[in-house]
């Protein structure tokens, strides 16, 4: 009988602890604001400028030209077989899902392969994914300075026997809010609907 009482008491204690854990978990879910799918900056700071870079049209690139819009900045190149088509395709799908709000988002790809990517090629490349996308490039040193300001690493590899080379590069997507502040970073494997949800937040 005593053993049974101990057992019952133990069961009650365990049950209460479990109920408490569940309550905390449920509470946390309701109390914490809907998290972003990307990683947000604790403090928003102005996105680095595109000083010295050119749009694929040949005009000077100025990030401020898109003030009032949300912006996605991505560093990539036109000979990139896997990650760049994936991320640009994801961005295009997310914009499609946004509907009319897509006009409030500008996607920009900065070339990390300026010696091989001509401005014309960049334009053709990015607009394959979406007519609104623009490419940006410049000389290697200027691209390097802008990349560094964004915390982006890139490193052209040694060409193989066929002359082809790849460019290792930071492949995250960077979200800039309407005021020009760098707000969020997305991993290249972000899903289109998750990106769309974050773009909704970014647009406010």
């Amino acid at each position, binding site marked *: 009988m005593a053993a049974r009482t101990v057992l019952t008491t133990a069961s009650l204690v365990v049950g209460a602890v479990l109920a408490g854990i569940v309550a905390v978990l449920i509470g946390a879910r309701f109390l914490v604001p809907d998290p972003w799918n990307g990683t947000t900056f604790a403090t928003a700071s102005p996105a680095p400028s595109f000083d010295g870079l050119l749009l694929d049209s040949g005009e000077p690139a100025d990030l401020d030209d898109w003030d009032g819009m949300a912006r996605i900045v991505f560093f990539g190149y*036109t*000979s*990139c*077989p*896997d*990650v760049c*088509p*994936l991320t640009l*395709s994801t961005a295009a799908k997310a914009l499609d899902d946004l509907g009319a709000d897509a006009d409030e988002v500008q996607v920009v790809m900065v070339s990390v392969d300026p010696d*091989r990517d001509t401005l014309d*090629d960049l334009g*053709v*490349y990015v607009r*394959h*994914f979406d007519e609104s996308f623009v490419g940006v490039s410049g000389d290697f040193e200027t691209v390097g300075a802008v990349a560094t300001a964004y915390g982006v*690493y890139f490193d052209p590899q040694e060409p193989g026997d*066929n002359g*082809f080379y*790849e460019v*290792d*590069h*930071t*492949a*995250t997507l960077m979200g800039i809010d309407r005021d020009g502040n760098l707000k969020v*970073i997305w*991993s*290249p*494997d972000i899903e289109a609907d998750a990106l769309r949800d974050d773009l909704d937040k970014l647009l406010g």
Partner: protein
Amino acid sequence: MTGPSRRVAALLCGVAFAFAATGCGDDSNTTAPGEAVVVEDLWTRPSPPIAGAAAFFLEISNDGPDDERITAVTAPGCAETLVHSTAVDDGGVATMQPAADADLAVASGDRLVMEPLGVHVMCLGPEEPFVEGETFELTIEFEPGGAITATGTVENR
């Protein structure tokens, strides 16, 4: 052929090598169930006209008795075709390397999945852009099994 039916054709087009596979729709390419290496779900994205490279994704299942190894890949319309691997580190830096030996092995009973941001077949210097809804061919040579030619679809996944 429409997109969806082409997709089905590609899926059905996984061919076994016991009889020196040459293509789809040829009954001589089939083997008894459980004795086949099959290439399926072969696809690539629509590519920009000036793209310097494209990536093919696929799955290979080896229900045959032998451990198999990919020794070569070839595709018409690609200046060069090779198995490559994308890796993305915690900082979001993407690097590409020729596939490691382990990425080329398909042990008996195993399944090898080539997918975005992982191991893939890289088509260098595509002669023509890959257009959504069209098909393309890829030949994979296995050791000891032999060659398989599979038909894939161009899809905006």
